[in-house]
């Protein structure tokens, strides 16, 4: 059931039997084997408590696996430094500094890495234009709507010019229209910048619309149960969402999700 990435592609992320058990004995994630190639858009899909965020945070190096290993660009995560290829993490909530302007918030990862102010500002202007917020550089986050705050968060993720983008349910708290819009914009960005994206969601429709591959996960204990390749051409538009292929994919994922939630592993 493990769908290998295309043989010619270089692996961006390799999860080698990584598992997570909390000190109180809760098995957050059974051992996972997963290889994600450069340029893939992989969605981790599953119900609450299936360990999809845990897996993503382990890839980011925010959590240590209890056992097993994770490699990013064939190196242990902790050895990824600012000089080489970069990854960026986008949280479920915008996670902005409320006291700082949009510009300062977006420039934060550059400031922390010691990029000179002038060069940093130029890059900030670039990404703010990309997410359509160039007129709001001086605004405070509290003056922006939820969708705009999320764009600031994405701009902050992009400002370091990452090769790998990790997103933890980034549009989960937004209304459906805003979410669709941001989904489409994200997809365009992925194509344009040739990013590798790992995207966590619990929305089947979002998963089908965005992904080249969907990793289905189940809860109690958290585990990977199935994988699906969504081999539909890009660019994908709103028409794709009402096409028979879309429904077919959504149906397969739905069935898999139901199976996963009914059958428990002993």
């Amino acid at each position: 059931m493990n769908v290998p990435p295309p043989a010619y592609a270089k692996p961006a992320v390799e999860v080698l039997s990584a598992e997570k058990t909390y000190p109180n004995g809760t098995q957050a994630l059974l051992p996972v084997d997963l290889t994600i190639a450069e340029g893939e858009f992989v969605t981790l899909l599953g119900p609450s408590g299936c360990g999809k965020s845990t897996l993503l945070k382990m890839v980011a190096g925010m959590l240590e696996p209890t056992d097993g290993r994770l490699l990013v660009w064939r190196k242990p995560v902790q050895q990824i430094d600012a000089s080489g290829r970069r990854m960026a993490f986008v949280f479920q909530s915008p996670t902005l500094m409320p006291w700082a302007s949009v510009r300062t918030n977006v420039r934060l990862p550059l400031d922390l890495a010691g990029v000179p102010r002038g060069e940093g500002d130029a890059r900030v202007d670039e990404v703010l234009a990309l997410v359509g917020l160039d007129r709001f550089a001086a605004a405070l986050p509290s003056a922006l709507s939820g969708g705009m705050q999320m764009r600031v968060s994405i701009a902050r993720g992009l400002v370091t010019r990452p090769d790998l983008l990790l997103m933890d349910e980034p549009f989960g708290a937004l209304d459906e229209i805003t979410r669709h819009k941001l989904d489409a914009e994200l997809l365009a960005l992925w194509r344009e910048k040739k990013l590798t994206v790992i995207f966590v969601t619990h929305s089947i429709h979002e998963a089908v619309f965005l992904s080249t591959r969907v990793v289905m996960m189940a809860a109690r204990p958290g585990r990977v149960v199935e994988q699906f390749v969504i081999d539909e051409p890009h660019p994908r538009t709103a028409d794709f969402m009402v096409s028979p292929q879309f429904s077919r994919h959504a149906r397969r994922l739905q069935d898999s999700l139901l199976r996963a939630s009914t059958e428990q592993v002993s």
Partner: protein
Amino acid sequence: MSAVVESAVPATSQRPAPVAVPAPAVAVAAPVVEASPRMPARRRPPLLGRPRVQRVVYPLLVGVVLVALWQIAVTAMELPPYLVPSPLLMMQTLVTDWVPLGNALLVTLKITLLSFAVATVAGVLISFLFVQSKRIETALFPYAVLLQVTPIVAVAPLIIIWVRNPTAAMTICAALVALFPIISNTTLGLRSVDPDLQAYFRLNRATRWQQLVRLRIPSALPYFFGGLRISSGLALIGAVVAEFVAGTGGSGAGLAYQILQAGFQLNIPRMFAALLLISLTGVALFAAMAWLTQRALGGWHASELSQD
């Protein structure tokens, strides 16, 4: 992404205000002006309908009414000035006795501000010490509490004996009273960092120093200012109590001494005048702190976001 411009709306999903921060001093009252059916809905409200004006006018009205009632009561019941002086007499005393009262005010103000500054600096330093490690805080926090719960009136005589210089002794007494809110609030603030933001800083390999300057200190500011507001009032109380205990007369006499002396001489109008000056000092301190908080947090923190 496409340059879709959304309208900027005030965020309603702000994080809830931290518990230690007192609510804005004056709640914004609902407009009193009844909307007449003919009035267009979106016109600028009349002068009295504006919350900013109301915030000044309403308390002022209450004050005027109370003072008028007081004046009427004193006149009607023919109360002798050595029991309850009329507001008019109090103001007259304030003018005629301005030289001793004004000097005393300066002395009390000096001790209050000195002790407030000492308490702020010491409190912040102690907080930084506390957040360095949980062990240090666990070991030392009970002593901070001990300092807080021991009544200053009981400790003051000792300090006044130990410290020769009366100004220094009184400053220490008042600073001890004002210290605790700064310590507890700033410590809480330095620890109240959004865990996701903290994770983001770590993910970007932020140094300890970067985390302190760019994350912890700004996160602590709302709590710190909450502590400042409480402590400013406490510093004044501490200064007055210390003056009472020290009982210093002469050129270094503060408002408390004026009250003591007026009590001995049954000069009740003067006592009231001194009391008024102490109250006004407290109000001025509070207003200054509120203004400072607004300057520092206005625009980003939920407790200070404009509700107009």
